[in-house]
């Protein structure tokens, strides 16, 4: 098992809160992490098609493999400017 920190921003923060520590199987992908969160926070489901995955401050594919201690975030569509 590995443990990662998941941070939430914008509209997702209102569904999940600021940060969650997630215990995941080894060699787990971002996709699996999202599904695990979405099973606890049902409001997350509808965001799946629009969020991007960020690991250690970089955008990566949902198929990206997570490692112990990674800082993970699911980034809703941005609206700065």
């Amino acid at each position: 098992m590995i443990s990662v920190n998941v941070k939430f921003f914008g509209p997702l923060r209102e569904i999940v809160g600021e940060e969650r520590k997630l215990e995941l199987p080894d060699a787990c992908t971002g996709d699996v992490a999202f599904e695990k969160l979405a099973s606890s926070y049902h409001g997350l489901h509808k965001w799946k098609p629009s969020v991007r995955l960020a690991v250690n401050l970089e955008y990566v594919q949902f198929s990206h493999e997570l490692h112990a201690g990674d800082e993970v975030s699911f980034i809703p569509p941005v609206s700065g400017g």
Partner: protein
Amino acid sequence: MVAVTHTPIDVERIFREIATPRSGGIDVFVGTVRNHSHGKRVRQLEYSAYVPMAEKLMAEIEQEIKRKWVIESVALVHRVGMLQIGDVAVVTAVSAHHRDAAFEACRYAIDRVKGVVPIWKKEYFEEGMAWVVGQHEVDVQT
């Protein structure tokens, strides 16, 4: 020079910081808070950011610009927190030897900031509020 800041943006100071003796032109885009959105009157806007990632991506955009155009200096600054109508929300500025590069790079800078940097806008109306999600808004359940 890139920054996400809680304090009001000093446009004049940014201008002075990127001005160099070799610059023949400085293009400054100033994004401000407007009082309407999709036909509704906006009272104020709240910006929030994933600050370390936002600053990292802004630094990457700065490097992209330096690779694409012959320029002197770039500044990308975005404010976060509760902003009022007319407040400066974002500044992108480019100094260059010639105006074509300054205009093009400055336009690219604001488009990239709006497109990829993890910053979010929440609109507060006379009644209710909404997150702006990409180009759309989503009413907040209350």
